[in-house]
């Protein structure tokens, strides 16, 4: 459990997409969120679909990973489809049963909107599948850098993200340990009436918070002892490199955007 948690959904690999700079991947998703809205007819959806397929293919990931990423939204897609069929009352009737009439536009809109979801989710899933959390953190730090001028503590926020990431598995293990220690003292977390079960988590929470505080305290002392004095004048070991590949793929996405604008109806 612990091991699977911290890497999240990341699947190691060396594909084109794995090698892309996290900044370009983040930018890509950001642009894509807008570009999906440009599509509004068969041709434009087809182009968008091709682009998505291209990226999916370039990850070289087994499809089951992508399907896993889609699981949480399957019901949303279904709901979307049904909703549009029920609500849209335009175009010729395809099918009628009592008060229920399915119009052609409804089916088309249902398909379009579902695709929109599908494309968006695929792309964001790919980000998490091909980028380690720490790369994403670095990418965010770099992209947000300009906001430093308006007082956003970008360096500190990024540092907090990486420290939290590092402590998540530690705290999970700790939770497990405390739980076992209290169970050995007769605590019962899994049965009994709901009220009793809720109060049973207090003996778990208090030690957990106390240990988190102690860790924070010791961590701060260790950081200062190692010369940490804020982001000023700090150098970095991890460096992001923007390659031609990143420019090409982003360029391609922008081109897709322009084409969609031209071809939409």
């Amino acid at each position, binding site marked *: 459990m612990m091991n699977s*948690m*911290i890497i*999240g*959904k990341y699947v190691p690999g060396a594909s084109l997409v794995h090698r892309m700079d996290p900044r370009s991947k983040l930018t890509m*998703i950001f642009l894509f*969120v807008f570009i999906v809205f440009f599509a509004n007819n068969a041709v434009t959806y087809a182009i968008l679909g091709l682009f998505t397929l291209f990226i999916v293919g370039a990850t070289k990931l087994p499809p089951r990973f992508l399907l896993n*990423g889609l699981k*949480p939204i399957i019901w*949303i897609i279904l*709901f*979307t489809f049904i*909703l*549009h069929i029920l*609500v849209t009352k335009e175009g010729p009737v395809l099918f009628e049963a009592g008060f229920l009439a399915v119009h052609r536009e409804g089916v088309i809109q249902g398909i379009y*909107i579902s695709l*929109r*979801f599908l494309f*968006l*989710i695929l792309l*964001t*899933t790919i*980000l*998490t599948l091909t980028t380690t*959390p720490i790369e*994403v953190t670095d990418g*965010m730090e770099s992209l947000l850098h300009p906001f430093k001028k308006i007082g956003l*503590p970008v360096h*500190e*926020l990024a*540092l*907090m*993200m990486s*420290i*939290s*990431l590092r*402590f*998540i598995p*530690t*705290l*999970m293990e700790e*939770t497990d340990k405390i739980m076992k220690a209290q169970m050995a003292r007769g605590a019962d977390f899994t049965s009994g009436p709901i009220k009793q079960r*809720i*109060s049973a*988590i*207090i003996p778990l*929470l*208090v030690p957990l*918070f*106390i240990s*988190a*505080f102690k*860790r*924070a*305290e010791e*961590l*701060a002392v260790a*950081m*200062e002892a190692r010369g*940490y004095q*804020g982001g000023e004048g700090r150098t970095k070991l991890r460096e992001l490199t923007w390659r031609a590949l990143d420019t090409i793929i982003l360029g391609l996405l922008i081109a897709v955007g322009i084409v969609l604008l031209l071809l939409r109806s």
Partner: protein
Amino acid sequence: MTTRRISLLSLLIALSVVGRLSFQFVPNIQPMTAIILITAILLGPVNGMIVAVLGCFLSNLLLGMGTWTIWQMLAWGILALVFGLLGKAVKRNRLLIFTPAAVLAGYLFGFIVSLNMFVLTANGLAYYLAGIPFDTMHAAGNGIFFLVLYPVMQKTFQYYLCKNDYGVTLQ
């Protein structure tokens, strides 16, 4: 930002993520919301918002990103702001006042996140209505977690913040 504040907030963020991950198998039960609200009440809106935004981002990084991430960040961020400001005003009977507020927060959260659907489709309202049972789960969970967590966090914060200079003050 002092080193102590950085390390303290980092651990709180990690705790909130652990809370969210541990309950991910129960639909829409989010101890994370209660942790954010209480942090905001006790440590003020800014610290609350930092925990909200980073906790949200990190947990989605581990659970799966989507466009919803932005809306969740916004929703938790707004809640942290609101509860942080309320925390400055309300000093007594906090459990009595904030527990119902935490329940309402569940619905507000649901509403803000469903804006995602308002943007993505023309029928946002239907999605929102369909989501209300889930929001209710969230809201009920908030109430319970708030009741349990507030005294715990209040005591531990008080104990440690008085002893050491964390660069944050108890509100």
